[in-house]
């Protein structure tokens, strides 16, 4: 006789989101660089910007900083980045 088992995980309400359109040419774009304030995050990001800038001519490079690396960026920071830039460079690390 079959035995009943229980799933303790519960449901997740899923919001379907679309990915932003991928760009083919990055020349002339405004680049946002978001520092998550982790130790050495700024050094890593600055080095990546130098390497990218050897191949891509960004029209602007705008630097931003999160309040803490333990939480998502504040909604107003994300809005600011989206309104004033075309692409964003972020890093997740420890």
């Amino acid at each position, binding site marked *: 006789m079959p035995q009943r*088992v*229980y*799933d*303790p*995980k*519960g*449901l997740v309400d899923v919001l379907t989101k679309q990915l932003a359109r991928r760009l083919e040419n990055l020349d002339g774009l405004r680049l946002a660089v978001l520092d998550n*304030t982790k130790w050495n995050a700024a050094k890593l990001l600055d080095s990546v910007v130098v390497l990218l800038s050897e191949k891509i001519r960004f029209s602007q490079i705008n630097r931003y900083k999160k309040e803490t690396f333990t939480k*998502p960026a504040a909604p107003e920071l994300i809005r600011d980045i989206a309104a004033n830039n075309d692409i964003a460079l972020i890093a997740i690390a*420890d």
Partner: protein
Amino acid sequence: MSQTAVAPFHSNDERTELWVDDEVDLSEWYLSQPWADGLPVVPPTPEKVAAMVSALGGEPQFVECKIPPRWGSLTREVLAINLVLAGCKVEYAPVVRAALLAMTEPQFNLNALQASTHMAAPLLVVNGPVRKAIGMNAGCNVFGSGNRANATIGRALRLVMLSVGGGIPGELDKATLGHPGKYTYCIAENEEGSPWAPYHVDRGFAPEESTVFVIAAESPHSVTNHVANDPQGILDSVASAMSTIAHNTAVAGGPCAIVMGVEHAKMIAAEGWTRSDVRNYLWMYSGNTFDELSFGHRYGKVYNRNLPRWCRRTPDSRIPIVARPEDLHLFVVGGAAGRFSAFIPGWGNYAVPVIRPIDTSKAAPDAPSCVDGTCTL
């Protein structure tokens, strides 16, 4: 072994049931699930789950909160299943629920704690009459082992964090080391043995109220002092345990806990010292020099740009362990004999501990409120 395809439960729909063949060993089946904590569970039955739902106030599809980082909905039925799996009695249910509601308040930052590479785990401290009513241990071996209430309440929290929250080691839980408190980490304050008013009374609750307090915590660091019989001598040992560069409170600030053994607490209180005196002394006389914390600039000029700007960056400047005495959460715990206390470092200034009353009535909580994606209902 064959198994019916798993389908999720649906709120407001008829529950989807899961079945396995009769020759399946249920203990082994549950142990093989990705959310398992490595210990055997109590297989739920319809009667056990129904009893837990009743203890929570009925309404099995009522969503108490959502558990990050998976953001699974913790319905009363899902909570009941986890309570049974953990080995809880029905009378533990309101305590576990209160603790989960506290942990999902935005300031506790459970989302980040679940994913952190640091070892911290939620430490639950219970105050008030509920401790005795449900048979918790506040005395000898308060941190374990041997008490069902302490063990299974703490375990239920972890099972929810694993299953509903998805904080599975190696997947979303990236802790490098973990610590034994990630199996269970739940104590009661020894209010009867304490020379001071209970912690929750110090925080403004009435003695007859029961509360849960949750803090993200490392494991306890024993403070042994069998020599001193005065406040300064005892507390200098505690301050010594605090004053290392190694634990996360020294590196990242934030709150921490001091658990004071009964003998130590009574000796300190006999000199007229209050809880506040103890916190102030420890805040003032613990710390590291900037030179120690920065490794003498051996690894570069800039040390830890997250150190508060009001800390002087000269070599012999004292950097306090906690920014203010209120960040030291003091409890009296443990057996009547033994001159031991413990320092419990926290996780950092990333989270604020939460104290919350336990709702032991069966009335449904207030209307939902959602902040930062966490909904407490």
